[in-house]
């Protein structure tokens, strides 16, 4: 399996045009051949499971660390477990077309639930396990979930809290019996009991189960995933087996994934990426899915597993880099010197070596030495000792961070995707990796840029519909199957790579008519380790202002080193020295923004360091940690006014929600900071 989207001639043909069609003619044949093998029966997850259980029977399919030991299940065992659960579900009365909500952190049992649900003709709906009860109520009510499979007491409690709103709900199944003994068990069932009953009723239901499995086609619904809802209520994205399996197949071919991969599944199960990696690709390729012991042990488990294929949002890579740097500061002199010396060398040649570019022999030898002394041990400590392909997506990643990992020899790449596309829209091919683009169209994906800059795509992964929302479906997907991403971007003429500017609806115009693209500036700000989050305002105004959240880990460590005492996040965020250093960052960003002729109007004139972290519990962010711009704008309207009217300080009170749902308020007096703006030669706004 070779990646077929190298620097092929076809892509160059499309240089400068708006539509990029990937794929060479010979590829078409290959694809047809594979589709036929799909026609031979591999058109659903249960079918793939059966193949894996036969062909890779003794290979590990799932591992989970529990009681300090990695417990493993082979494909044959997993198939047995899933079958028992499926029989148990039929026994409980699950009908074809029922929705089964699955709530919990990544555990093999819950992955089995999804496949078991499909086996009985039901539709699995994974739900974010950190949602508050009310958010959960909306999703469960919207899909009319009849059954819920929940991880533990915490999740069951949330469902029971809102059960009055859930008219369809019949049964709740829980995994972890701890603390559940006193509950009324009329409609509550323990997962293992459901499986036992399923095994006991094997003769009674097996024909029914086989019949239901037999009815699944390439167009049956595979899963329904709720979008995180940057705007408004979450929407239920219906994905068919075709969407999931084709996407998994194409992406696995693209990176040459095999059944020997090991992945660590730690990202929310309700997120499309996890579904594709831990189910789609895992079932297509037959590789092993490893689940961490708990949320907090992820880093240790990562190291123990040493995945060969890894996915993480930028914040994970950022966090790791920050902790490496902090720990190196505490290391002995010799170690520190060696670390910095070889890291400088890696920065110089590491990326080129990874990309297969020519590098001098001496440099290569020194890099080898560095690998023995520094890079190798470091990669091992981070858990990247065996990594072949790593991806980051979701947010822009800082170029320094990106280059750091690549220079160590970790093949970290970026991709751009959406739930509606079953993840893949563009991907970076090996050897063409850059921090500022998101790559070329993924296999079988066509891309078109509209006049207003919005990116559209068409692919086999394009979702079926938004559940019970024909209106949104029609406005997102046109009859020809083109989907609007809502992101603005352009295709670089010389490389054919896609560059994302911002959310299309966030891109605005300033009073002067200059382009306003907040994300562009915010990302530049966020690349500083002590800035966690930034929000830029200025649409329709004459200048831009910004909110900034400091990163408590980085700034806290800095404060400790500099003997700065602080009692709370709020106090640290308001410390004059912190404000000074943030101002320096803002001014540096202004300089770099000024250099971009299209966006030079977006320089930050004034800013404020917020007294609280923007948080999903307060509705200021989505569960996937994307800022909800409108809500932040409304909630902190008084601060924005102060930023524009020239005040020196602003006193404000903000409502906060604690993790258990109670509300409180914090008040603070914030100092407003002015930042120097770089001069821009007066010029006309570049016309597209």
């Amino acid at each position, binding site marked *: 399996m070779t990646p077929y989207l190298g620097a092929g001639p076809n892509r160059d043909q499309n240089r400068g045009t708006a539509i990029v069609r990937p794929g060479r003619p010979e590829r078409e044949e290959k694809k047809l051949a594979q589709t036929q093998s799909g026609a031979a029966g591999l058109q659903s997850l249960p079918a793939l499971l059966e193949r894996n259980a036969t062909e890779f029977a003794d290979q590990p399919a799932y591992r989970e660390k*529990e*009681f*300090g*030991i990695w417990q493993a299940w082979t494909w044959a065992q997993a198939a047995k477990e899933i079958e028992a659960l499926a029989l148990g579900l039929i026994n409980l009365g699950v009908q074809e077309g029922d929705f089964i909500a699955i709530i919990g952190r990544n555990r093999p049992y819950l992955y089995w639930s999804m496949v078991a649900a499909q086996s009985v003709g039901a539709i699995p709906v994974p739900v974010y396990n950190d949602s508050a009860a009310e958010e959960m109520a909306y999703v469960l009510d919207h899909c009319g979930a009849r059954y819920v499979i929940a991880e533990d007491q915490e999740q069951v409690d949330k469902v029971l809290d809102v059960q009055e709103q859930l008219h369809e709900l019949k049964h709740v199944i829980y995994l972890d019996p*701890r*603390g559940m*003994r*006193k509950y009324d068990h009329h409609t509550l069932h323990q997962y293992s009991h459901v499986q036992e009953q399923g095994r006991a009723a094997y003769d009674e239901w097996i024909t029914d189960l086989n019949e239901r499995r037999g009815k699944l086609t390439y167009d049956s619904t595979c899963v329904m995933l709720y979008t995180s809802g940057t705007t408004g209520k979450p929407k239920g994205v219906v994905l068919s087996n075709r969407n999931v399996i084709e996407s998994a197949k194409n992406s696995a071919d693209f990176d040459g994934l095999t059944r020997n991969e090991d992945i660590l599944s730690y990202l929310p199960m309700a997120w499309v990426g996890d579904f594709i990696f831990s189910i789609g690709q895992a079932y297509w390729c037959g590789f092993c899915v490893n689940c961490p*012991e*708990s949320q*907090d*042990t992820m880093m*240790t488990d990562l190291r123990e597993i040493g995945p060969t294929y890894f996915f993480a949002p930028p914040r994970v890579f950022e966090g790791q880099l920050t902790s490496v740097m902090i720990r190196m500061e505490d290391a002995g002199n010799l170690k520190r010197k060696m670390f910095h010396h070889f890291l400088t060398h890696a920065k110089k040649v590491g990326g080129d070596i990874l990309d297969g570019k020519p590098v001098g022999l001496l440099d290569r030898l020194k890099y080898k030495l560095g690998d023995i002394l520094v890079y190798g041990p470091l990669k091992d400590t981070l858990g990247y000792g065996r990594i072949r392909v790593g991806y980051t997506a979701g947010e822009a990643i800082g170029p320094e961070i990106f280059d750091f990992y690549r220079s160590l020899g970790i093949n970290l790449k970026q991709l751009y995707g959406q739930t509606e596309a079953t993840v893949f829209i563009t991907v970076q091919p090996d050897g063409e990796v850059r921090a500022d683009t998101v790559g070329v169209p993924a296999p079988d994906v066509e891309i078109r840029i509209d006049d207003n800059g919005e990116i559209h795509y068409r692919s086999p992964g394009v979702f079926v519909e938004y559940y019970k929302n024909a209106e949104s479906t029609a406005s997102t997907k046109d009859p020809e199957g083109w989907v609007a991403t809502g992101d603005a971007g352009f295709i670089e003429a010389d490389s054919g790579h896609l560059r994302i500017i911002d959310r299309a609806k966030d891109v605005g115009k300033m009073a002067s008519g200059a382009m306003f693209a907040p994300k562009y500036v915010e990302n530049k700000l966020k690349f500083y380790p002590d800035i966690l989050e930034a929000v830029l305002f200025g649409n329709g105004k004459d200048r831009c202002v910004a909110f900034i959240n400091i990163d408590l880990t980085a700034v806290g460590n800095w404060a400790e080193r500099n003997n700065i005492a602080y009692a709370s996040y709020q106090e640290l965020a308001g410390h004059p020295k912190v404000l000074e250093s943030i101002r320096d960052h803002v001014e540096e960003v202004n300089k770099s923004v000024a250099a971009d002729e299209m966006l030079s109007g977006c320089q930050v004139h004034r800013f404020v360091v917020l007294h609280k972290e923007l948080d999903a519990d307060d509705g200021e962010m989505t569960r996937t940690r994307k800022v909800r711009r409108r809500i932040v704008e409304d909630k902190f309207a008084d601060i924005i006014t102060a930023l524009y009217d020239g005040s020196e300080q602003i006193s404000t009170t903000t409502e906060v929600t*604690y*993790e*258990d749902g109670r509300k409180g308020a914090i008040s603070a007096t914030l100092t407003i900071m002015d930042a120097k703006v770089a001069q821009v030669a007066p010029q006309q706004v570049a016309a597209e």
Partner: protein
Amino acid sequence: MEEGYVTEDGRKIGGVVMEMKNITLRFGGVVAIKDISFDIRQGEIRAIIGPNGAGKSSMLNVISGFYVPQEGQVFYQGKPRPQMRPYEVARQGIARTFQNIALFEGMSVLDNVMTGRLNYMKTGLFQQAWWKGKAEQEETENREVVEKVIDFLEIQHIRKTPVARLPYGLKKRVELARALAAEPSLLLLDEPMAGMNVEEKEDMSRFILDVNDEFGTTIALIEHDMGVVMDLSDRVVVMDYGKKIGDGTPDEVRNNQDVIDAYLGVAHD
């Protein structure tokens, strides 16, 4: 009540496990405990509360056998308990946590919790040093119990962390883990929530309830925070100046005039 009772939430409480009869404890001229009697029943959560200096910790030390009262007698499982050394008490199935955390600071969480299993380990120094065979097998068996406790108290992420590096709330949890590793039939908790914030208190309360629910462990706890005690316990003993001023269900105790006076403060003669 001899045959036990059923709590509001439907748990069946068994017969008397430990009984204090007319306990008086003096330190020189100071009378820490004055003629106190009460009992602890199988499977219940029994709290001892009272203002500062009421003699709560002294009482717990009497229960644990660390202090020997000058007057009165302690009955454990129906038999009068002779004076015992702490390790003998531990062998009787009593485990405890301390008000001022008493862990081995330099050791990892795992090793600390393993010490809770010492009573179950039979191999001697030389066997341990030789390691292969019996000692290894024994460690594996005990590690299994310890891992279940670690899982139960959700401290997997700090398994290998030295205790000294942990924040206070987690140290308390590790202490509870060590006590649980001993698989006690009676668990004594000395101010398990002292110095914790609201969230940590709620976590700890949940663990205490879960321990009682899951393993049926009888729990006697001392606590300062009235709210927590009233929510957690089945029966409460209230002490003030070494005397028992109330004993009953949280509701009964809450409406007891002496208790209200002790907490709100009235002039003592």
